[in-house]
């Protein structure tokens, strides 16, 4: 298990470096960043000053090295808009987004697992069909439109939920539903197909032949096997949800990292944008890494791949 974790950490680390490089290169995407930063009105002297200030005159690999070395120490540069270190703005905002991600994820799982399992257990009945319709609709529903529909429903027609901000738990209800419903279909469909496959296996027949109670056959013997592929997809979906917070936070005016990213992009606050792209990518890398470990725990064949006996 330890060896497994070490190996996975290694590849996650390499991935992080590559992703950081992409985030870093964003600043060069549209040509000379110094000219960009100086703005339309900026003179070439301004640009030269900025170039020296930010070290843009050095070779790119050197710049990247400086940037990543600073980032590792928690220094993400200086926000142009806030005129503060990016890190100090970032962490509060990330907290809000992670909280939103968590509540949305819980909503997604609460929706996806029971429906996926029930759809498999009662395959081809109305339950299965209802679950399928819920999944198909969820996959086609643009998050921002769904968010607006919920606002119309719960804030305009029946004014019971607040539309903007993140002060109370009520503020998180609509955003969580939106993001959760965005992530649920993929998880639900995979749970369903995994359960169908598992329920047809020989070992489930064995469990039934041994008189194991049907509930245990379904929720222990079959589910544990069906969950293995679901874990990776759920982690990926959680990552997409966090990225999707850009849209949802801007609709609900939640002061999280997603909204910060959007605003920073509109303000051309590139250091902040870079830091955010990096953070979102890292969260994704960490999530998939955790999913791998969870999978190894769920699936002994993966965990014990190095240590085969017999």
């Amino acid at each position, binding site marked *: 298990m330890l060896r497994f974790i070490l190996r996975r950490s290694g590849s996650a680390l390499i991935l992080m470096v590559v992703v950081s490089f992409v985030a870093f290169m964003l600043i060069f995407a549209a040509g000379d960043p110094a000219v960009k930063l100086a703005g339309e009105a900026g003179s070439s002297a301004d640009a030269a000053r900025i170039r020296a200030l930010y070290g843009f005159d050095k070779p790119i690999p050197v710049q990247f090295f400086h940037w990543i070395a600073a980032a590792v120490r928690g220094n993400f540069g200086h926000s142009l808009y806030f005129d503060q270190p990016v890190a100090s703005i970032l962490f509060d905002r990330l907290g809000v987004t992670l909280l939103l991600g968590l509540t949305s994820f819980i909503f997604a799982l609460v929706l996806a697992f029971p429906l996926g399992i029930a759809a498999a257990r009662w395959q081809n009945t109305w339950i299965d069909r209802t679950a399928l319709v819920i999944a198909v609709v969820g996959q086609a529903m643009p998050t921002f439109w769904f968010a607006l529909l919920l606002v119309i429903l719960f804030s305009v027609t029946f004014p019971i939920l607040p539309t903007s901000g993140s002060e109370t738990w009520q503020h998180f209800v609509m955003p969580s539903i939106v993001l959760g419903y965005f992530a649920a279909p993929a998880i639900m469909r995979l749970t369903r197909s995994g359960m169908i496959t598992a329920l047809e*296996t020989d*070992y489930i027949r064995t469990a*039934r*032949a041994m*008189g194991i109670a*049907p509930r245990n056959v379904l929720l222990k013997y079959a589910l544990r096997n069906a969950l293995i592929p679901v874990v990776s997809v759920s982690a990926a979906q959680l990552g997409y949800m966090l990225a999707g917070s850009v849209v949802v936070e801007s609709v609900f005016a939640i002061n999280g990292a997603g909204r910060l990213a959007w605003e920073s992009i509109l303000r051309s606050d590139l250091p902040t944008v870079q830091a955010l792209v990096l953070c979102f990518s890292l969260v994704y890398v960490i999530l998939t890494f955790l999913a791998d470990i969870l999978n190894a725990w769920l699936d002994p064949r993966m965990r014990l791949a190095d240590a*085969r*006996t017999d």
Partner: protein
Amino acid sequence: MLLDVQQLSVDIPTAQGVLHAVQGISFSVDNGETLCIVGESGCGKSLTALALMNLLPRRAIRTAGRLAFSGTELQALSAAAMNKLRGENMAMIFQEPMTSLNPVFTIGDQMTDVLRQHRRVSQREARERAIYLLTRVGIGKAETRLGQYPHQLSGGLRQRVMIAMALMCDPKLIIADEPTTALDVTVQAELLRLLLSLQEEFGMGLLLITHDLGIVSRMADNVAVMYAGQIVESGPVISIFENPLHPYTQGLMACLPTPERKRMQHLRAIPGTVPALVGQLSGCRFRGRCPYAQPICAEDVALRPYAHDHAYRCVLPPDISLANAAVTLETNP
């Protein structure tokens, strides 16, 4: 009577029509007795076993005149009651040791679950029972094995685990569906010996399914020969081996290795193929492959008694049949 089966049929609706996989078969197993059901692949043996356990594929239809276990009519039982019976009083061992154990739970978890499902025992007691049984089925270092996962065990070991698991609740009847077919020949022999000794120790009835008459001769008290969904001959093992009356049984015997025809030598198989079991069936199912087929074979044949408990499903009278058997046996070097 431990198990009494009368007129058991299994029908499976398919796209081409109804598949009559098992057609009104009757047999019984007593306490401590071994009944072998023998027949070629596809003749309905597994479905028969699954029908007894009520574990048939979802769309298969089971009908039976009587399906009694220890005097209880199984068809009248609720799903919950049937579930209680499974694993506790009747257990089953499957053909595929590689896929029949759950890959994500330890051997110990799977074994103790069976006992704790049916008996109010502590986890420790269940573990002790599992260790005892693993040792009993010839697995060394049982304690260590309990913590291992199926993929860490060889096929032979996995099948031993299956047997131990089936014994967890001390069932009265074990149904073993080709338990050794997937294993090496040497492992096969060991496992069969093990099954015999376990049966002696625990005094349970054994319904052993196989396609190998060699196994039958060593294990069975009684034999039922199945062909295309029907029992074509049944009786005590000695009587069947001494006087095989049905041409199909005779054919199977002719394929058996004898001391002169060693195991590894090329064995003769009965020529021809099993008829499709879809749609309306009539007449002797074997007539297409039978060397003695006559026009009358196109009509349905009933099982007819020959001697005590020995019956066969053929129009040939026993004396002619036996003469044929001698010919068949002789002409097959």
